[in-house]
């Protein structure tokens, strides 16, 4: 039992740190917002560095890496507020797609893929799709597709008789309408309408989907922890420099204790992140317990850290001109993604009671 990185993982982390420094400059980030969600140079660089190949099996030309490597990448992207569609493309897609051409395109940074499972009628329940797949076509509405506005492919869940089935739909498929939406996180999400859209069925069903989504959750939790630690660091630095009443505000005990609770929340979150990440390959019941416990607790601690970071920054924390509030907004989206804390606490309880 240890939490040490291998030499290769250490190198990966260093490279992510450099990448985040290069692309994470906040002023540059903010200037780039009107140009859309993606930074093609960054995405190509990620391909070159092999990050898009981590979760692709070696047999398909990928690195066959572990969840730990994905975690390291996502921490860096979270810290830098990256808006690249890494999880959909490089975590979910390789878990559900085995088409060598598409996997090769993922590795090369030539395609972006989004998962379309959310519907108005199912809230966070993956098993209940009202979209139907019959006679080789899909019909239904997906109410929220993360990073969906710019995806080249969609992985769509649908009901085929009693079974949940998965389907691959290209962006230009007949009968597919994409309604793009900008999130508070400045990412470009989408709603989809499918009307007799031809489908290309994928192999797995609900089990495969749930497993892929658990991997996606763990990846987003790493993003959240990166974001929380960025907030912690900038808030601590602010407490040490901002002066009021003739002293740095970090000299006031009430704020010191709040800062300690922020640091403590980050420690809890990181501990839960390791728990979830290192249990992704465990049997489904154990995986559910770990992932849902982590999703719950990281959601709660992230909320606390983000709210208190804004509060401790005071007025300036509520402006659009500092990264603080942008981390808050991204963390609120991650909190909702694939089920909020309440949803996952209930999933945890059910999995625990069944164990």
């Amino acid at each position, binding site marked *: 039992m240890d939490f040490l990185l291998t030499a290769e993982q250490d190198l990966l982390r260093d490279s992510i740190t450099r990448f985040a420094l290069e692309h994470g400059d906040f002023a540059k980030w903010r200037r780039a917002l009107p140009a859309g969600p993606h930074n093609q140079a960054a995405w190509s660089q990620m391909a070159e560095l092999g990050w898009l190949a981590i979760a692709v099996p070696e047999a398909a030309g990928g690195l066959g890496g572990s969840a730990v490597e994905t975690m390291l990448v996502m921490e860096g992207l979270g810290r830098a507020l990256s808006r690249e569609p890494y999880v959909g493309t490089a975590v979910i897609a390789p878990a559900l797609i085995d088409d060598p051409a598409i996997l090769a395109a993922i590795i090369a940074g030539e395609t972006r893929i989004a998962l379309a499972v959310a519907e108005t009628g199912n809230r966070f329940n993956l098993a209940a799709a009202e979209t139907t797949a019959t006679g080789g076509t899909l019909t239904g509405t997906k109410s929220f597709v993360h990073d969906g506005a710019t995806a080249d492919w969609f992985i769509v869940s649908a009901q085929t008789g009693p079974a949940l089935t998965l389907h691959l739909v290209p962006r230009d498929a007949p009968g597919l309408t994409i309604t793009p939406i900008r999130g508070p996180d400045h990412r470009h999400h989408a709603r989809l309408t499918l009307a007799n859209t031809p489908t290309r069925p994928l192999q797995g069903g609900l089990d495969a989907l749930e497993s892929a989504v658990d991997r996606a959750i763990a990846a987003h939790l790493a993003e959240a922890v990166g974001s929380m630690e960025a907030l912690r660091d900038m808030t601590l630095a602010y407490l040490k420099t901002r002066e009021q009443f003739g002293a740095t505000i970090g000299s006031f005990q009430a704020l010191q204790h709040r800062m300690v609770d922020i640091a403590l929340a980050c420690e809890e979150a990181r501990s839960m992140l390791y728990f979830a990440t290192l249990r992704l390959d465990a049997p489904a019941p154990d995986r559910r317990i770990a992932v849902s416990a982590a999703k719950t607790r990281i959601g709660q601690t992230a909320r606390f850290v983000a709210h208190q970071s804004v509060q401790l920054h005071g007025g300036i924390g509520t402006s659009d001109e500092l990264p603080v509030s942008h981390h808050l907004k991204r963390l*609120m989206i991650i909190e909702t993604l694939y089920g909020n804390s309440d949803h996952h606490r209930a999933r945890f309880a059910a999995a625990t009671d069944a164990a």
Partner: protein
Amino acid sequence: MNLDYTPDEIAFQQRMRAFFAANIDERLRALVRTGTRLEPREYVAYQQLLAAQGWGAPTWPTEYGGTGWTPTQYYIFEAESARADAPQQFHQGLELIGPVLFTYGSDAQKQKYLPRIISGEDWWCQGYSEPGAGSDLASLKTRAVRDGDHYVVTGQKIWTSYAHAASHMFCLVRTEIRPRRQEGISLLLIDMKSPGIRVRPILTLDERHHVNEVFLDEVRVPAEDLVGEEGKGWNYGKVLLDRERGLSAALGLRLGQYVRVVKSRAAAVRLGATTLLADPGFRDKLAQIEIEMLALEYMGLRTLADAVAGLDSGPRASMLKIRWSELIQRITELWVEALGYDAACFAPLDDATDLPADMPSPMASYLHARVTTIYGGANEVQRNIIARRSLGL
């Protein structure tokens, strides 16, 4: 002890109820209900509507054009306004500078400025906070130097609500350096069209523009626009703060609108065969907030009763501010939670139409609510004040 209104108060209540029912259109109600901040022209139109009734200044004495209402009448007015999803009046002229002017201002200032606040012709903004003077307002650095019959003002204000729409600013400036930082501060009335004023918008985290930085570069202000005595501005400022808190009895009244909207939204969210509103966990969280709002309402009523009886409310006004801000944060947070993925819909791209009807109100309201524990004296500062003044710590 009793919770009943007098027959006169009931008649007054009915009159207010009828007024709001007849005069607030559904478009405005919907804006208020969804927590949208109004545009200046909407505030002005609403102010004119009230002024036409003679209710432009509900808390002012009649001699200055106010209603002369009792605290209870004002409370009823606010309660009926909230009940009807009517807006709140923009308060900076009415509550923050008007009362200072009729208390400390010169006759000329009263005659010139008070009627135009009531009529909505003038729009006042508050020039208090500075980049280095937030919670610690007394450390403000904007300087005013006397030059003949003018003051020459140079400095920078920040978080100035609606400075871009304001005709005037009431502004704390330093006219003298004194060892006690609260001394040597003066209160000036500044015409926003004066040369040397530059307003820079600051977007807040909800991506709206309502606060600004205001740069003052050798702005010449006639000496007759000094309020009261030079160097005594801090004291008038404190009166403002006290008065702001005196209005706090009615603070909680507006929270009910969020409960109504959260309930109706959660009732529309399907959860298998049931709805989110019927989910025990969600209903519990909402009930918890409803109960705490009742506690706030009754704390407010006790403060109101003290005001009526002329008793000191102690620290209850600061406590109301603390609890109100915490509750508005929690109810808007629950609103966002109710929406699930729809909360992520913040702005349409292209010419999208098929989007949630309430986009982006819940998320914007939630984000904007983060400000409430910071402005008007951050909650940490409120707790310092209560500890010192009321608990003697």
